[in-house]
């Protein structure tokens, strides 16, 4: 039985039995892990808000060889990102961010840069709120950190460079942009312009501190939303619940 301590963001928390909780964390040292907190519902002293989604905690856990779930022994709160919980739309967008990480990240695969991306963006969400452009930066960087960086430099199939925007399509299946000729053989492709590709390349390079300053033009906003959401949906295999929720509350003022 080995004891571990690592920083972690709570991605999901489900009640289990009389007083336990099953939790999913994204940790700095171990990537995504699932665990059980025994007696968590009874002991507010031990856990409290520390087991709610968004919380950044110092997680103490141990493993038993025969169990797939780790045992959570303690969670010390580092940052509750309370500002997110104080606003309906921040809760909705924060839920989308943690749901994408939960669904995309494989278990026990360490990606410290993804951990930093998530905590940085939870901080931005808490302080400034979220907009579509910031979500696109989050999505493309998450894909990059997990090894799914979309191929944007030339046709992912025949490697010919593009001469005009009209020639370019995006293929979720191929994981990048394809020329018009190669797109004919593919089932699902989406239009994308040269300008959008440049904006996405910039989103991958920009200093995290300058991220809130990046502004997409109208075409880049629509196209990048279409291709990145399509790409994520292709990998997950279904629509995310938090996106359904955002759709359901979008008309509230």
């Amino acid at each position, binding site marked *: 039985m080995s004891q571990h301590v690592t920083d972690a963001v709570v991605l*999901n928390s489900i009640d*289990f*039995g*009389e007083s336990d909780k099953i939790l999913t964390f994204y940790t700095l040292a171990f990537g995504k892990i699932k665990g059980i907190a025994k007696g968590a519902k009874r002991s*507010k*002293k031990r856990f*409290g*808000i*520390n087991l*709610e*989604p*968004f919380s950044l905690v110092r997680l103490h856990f141990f493993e038993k060889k025969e169990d797939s779930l780790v045992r959570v022994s303690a969670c010390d*709160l580092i940052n*509750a990102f*309370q500002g997110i*919980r*104080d*606003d*309906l739309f921040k*809760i*909705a967008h924060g*839920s*989308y961010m*943690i*749901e994408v990480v939960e669904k995309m990240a494989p278990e026990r695969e360490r990606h410290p840069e993804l951990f930093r991306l998530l905590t940085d963006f939870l901080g931005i969400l808490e302080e400034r709120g979220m907009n579509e452009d910031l979500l696109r930066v989050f999505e493309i960087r998450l894909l990059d950190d997990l090894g799914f960086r979309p191929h944007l430099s030339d046709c992912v199939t025949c490697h010919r460079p593009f001469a005009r925007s009209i020639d370019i399509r995006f293929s979720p299946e191929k994981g990048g942009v394809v020329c018009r000729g190669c797109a004919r053989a593919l089932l699902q492709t989406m239009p994308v312009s040269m300008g959008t590709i440049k904006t996405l390349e910039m989103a991958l390079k920009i200093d995290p501190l300058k991220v809130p300053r990046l502004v997409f033009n109208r075409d880049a906003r629509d196209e990048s939303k279409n291709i990145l959401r399509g790409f994520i949906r292709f990998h997950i295999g279904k629509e995310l*619940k*938090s*996106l*359904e*929720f*955002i759709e*359901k*509350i979008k008309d*509230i*003022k």
Partner: protein
Amino acid sequence: MNSLKCVATLVKELSRLPGIGEKTAQRLAFHILKLPKVEAESLARSIVDVKEKVKICSRCFNITEEDPCQICRDSNRNEKQICVVEEPHDLLAIEKTGIFKGKYHVLQGSLSPLDGRGPDDIRVRELLDRLKGNNVDEVIIATNPNNDGEATAHYLTKVTKSLGVKVTKIAQGIPMGGDLEYADHVTIGKAIEGRREI
């Protein structure tokens, strides 16, 4: 052999209940086997009774045997105050205090971004209809202090305030018998924010 089949069916049925694993179900089944027949029949009847007699109150959506429920029918309770809770067991918890003398509205759930549960999936529209039709002075939001409960509270605040109704939320902070030193800084912060003059 037949009797073993019955026991196996009982274990299977019990293990479908929340929080009951197969071992606990087996222990419960053997306990039921040892019960006097009259007690076992009483248990079985009570299960059938709740399914046959319990319904949802058409005004507040609490569980009840008579529609409208006893609380909605009670003319001594203040109709101008409506306390909004997520589930019937939350209503019971507030009723046990004996302090609240208004009426209730049970949402039968909460908004949940991670489960994709939106306003149309719980009894929000019915609450708004009640507020439009009655002379309600105050809506007290008593959702759970977790992310789903907070999302629900923010949503209700937005939609009920637009109707010109006063909206309040139950206080958050240090529980009775708790220790400040063990409370997290969010809870202490909420307690300081919600302090009142004594």
